[in-house]
């Protein structure tokens, strides 16, 4: 059994991205809506609150709560912000998988795995490149009907 957590680099990148996006939206708001000050101010405040809340509160909590426990026969995903959610998927029920990796994912941690089981899907998000490769290798050995000794 091994516990995988979301990549911390990815958290920082997402936080910076959200703050930059918030800043851009506020500037755009100021440029475009300067002739309607009330709307401009209200929108800017909304963008600022949502942006800062996401970057400072939501993302860190979400990343802290996000974990994947992979044992010999099942994957347990724990996630959530207000409501904590635990999802369990039996490895033998996985029918096929899709992996997505973005450029510079070794640094950014933007690696994703989608597991399709009979009757449902599980997303494994924001993985460190090493963990991503390890899970991918693990799936490969499951498909081949062999046990990957390097993981557990």
């Amino acid at each position, binding site marked *: 059994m091994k516990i995988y957590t979301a990549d911390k680099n990815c958290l920082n990148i997402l936080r910076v991205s959200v703050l930059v996006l918030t800043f851009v939206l506020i500037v755009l708001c100021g440029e475009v809506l300067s002739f309607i000050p009330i709307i401009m101010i209200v929108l800017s405040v909304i963008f600022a609150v949502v942006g800062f809340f996401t970057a400072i509160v939501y993302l860190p909590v979400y990343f802290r709560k996000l974990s994947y426990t992979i044992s010999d026969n099942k994957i347990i995903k724990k996630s959530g912000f207000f409501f904590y959610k635990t999802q369990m998927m039996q490895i033998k029920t996985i029918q*096929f998988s899709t992996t*997505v990796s*973005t*450029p510079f994912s070794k640094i950014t941690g933007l690696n994703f795995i989608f597991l*399709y089981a009979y009757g449902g899907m599980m997303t494994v998000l924001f993985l460190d490149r090493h963990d991503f490769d390890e899970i991918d290798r693990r799936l490969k050995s499951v*498909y081949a009907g062999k046990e990957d000794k390097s993981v557990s």
Partner: protein
Amino acid sequence: MYHEHPLRIIRYASKNIWLLIFPLLRGIRSIRLDFDALYVWLKGAWFDLLIIIAIIGFGYIKWYFTEFEITSSEIIRRSGIIIKHKVSIPFKNISAVTAEHSFYLRPFYAVRLNLDTRAGAFSKSDMSLLVRRSDLRWISKAIPQSEHHSGKKSLVIQPKWFAIVFFSLVFSSSLSGVVYLAALLFQSGRFAHEIIEQEMGDMIKFANTVSAKFTLSIPPAAVLLGILIIVAWLFSFISNMFRYAGFKMKKESGTLKVRMGVGTVRQYHIVPPKINYVDLRQNLVMKLFKTSSVNISCSGYGNEKNELPVLLPILNRRQANRALDLIGFRKYVVKRKSRVSKQAVISYLGLPSLAAFLIPVVSDIIVYFYPTLKDLFYFIKFMGEIPVIWMFVVKTIALMTSGVTIEDDFCCLRYSRFYAFHTILADNDKLVKIQIVQDPIGEKIGRCRMDFYFSSESSKSKKLKGVKIEDALKIIEHFGFLYK
């Protein structure tokens, strides 16, 4: 690592067709300059060419970065230029492999290969590849589900041509014909518009002539509607004939191979253990002739639009049981152990009776207020009553024949949906849920509706109305007992 067929470049390029907006904008601009518009257009042609080259270039790059690989246990498709996608499907989870030899792909030696598992999106393949015909041969050898067992014992079932004609005849609907026709014509844009304008003009003239010639009280609009329905039905019939012509089902060790079609030849490789259930489908005509078509629920087979998951087109009950035995399903059509209550008349005949009553009443009210529309509404009343009476007959038969049997190893469910009769045969482990639905009246008179859920990509239930509550509870008890 292998690439798909180069023809795929066109498909990938088509996604960048929006880039043509730039030459179009330039074209609109040049129209305004009416003096030397042609000169300006020619002078700027390099830009248009550049856009077209860019579109094809994108397609080529996307094609170049799309590869597939076959290992000893799985098939992998890699795609993406910047963001890398990888789809891995293990062979052991493949439920159906489809090789589609479309008539327009054949000159290019290209084949569309679809792979499906029991997971993923319904009505969409989990992996779709456009491959060279030469590549298909070794892919077939590599994927166990589509392996050729030419030397081993196999069973071939090929229905006679008249069975296919009969099947196409009874399963052709004017609605699907209209869908076909609309899709075909409307996708052709302006050209289609001209055809419709011209053909509709001719048809209106013809409708007027028919109406006048026979001095019928039927208005031309109604004649036109009738002609359209007949044309649509014929179109549906012909397309069904093309789709199912040459139908051949072959059972080999481990797989069921279905081959069908003229023009576009489709080859399916189905893994029998992945079949969720067998559905013997009948309409009223087939019910009277005591014949049915054997359909299956299996991911990847018969999921596409206008496609029926038919395994054997037309068989009587004895033939169907024998065929199921031969292909090793070990599930048979048996007599009902739990029948629908004969008193459930309202549940079965309530809706068609109400519709049969309301259509003439509403029609007469409209005619009363608008007497000029008398002819049209008399015709609508007549036409509207036909499907309603048809449904009344179907539901009367359904009331007499619906029911369920749950044996130790399989279940047999008979029910009716719209105009069709279904007999579902499934292993008990494929029956995943039974739900009892009771409204206040049903609660009082002791009847309920039973919803049966089988393993399937879609969560549609099979509804059995008018079951006595004590029968329903017995079924549930038996179902529960099996899973203790």
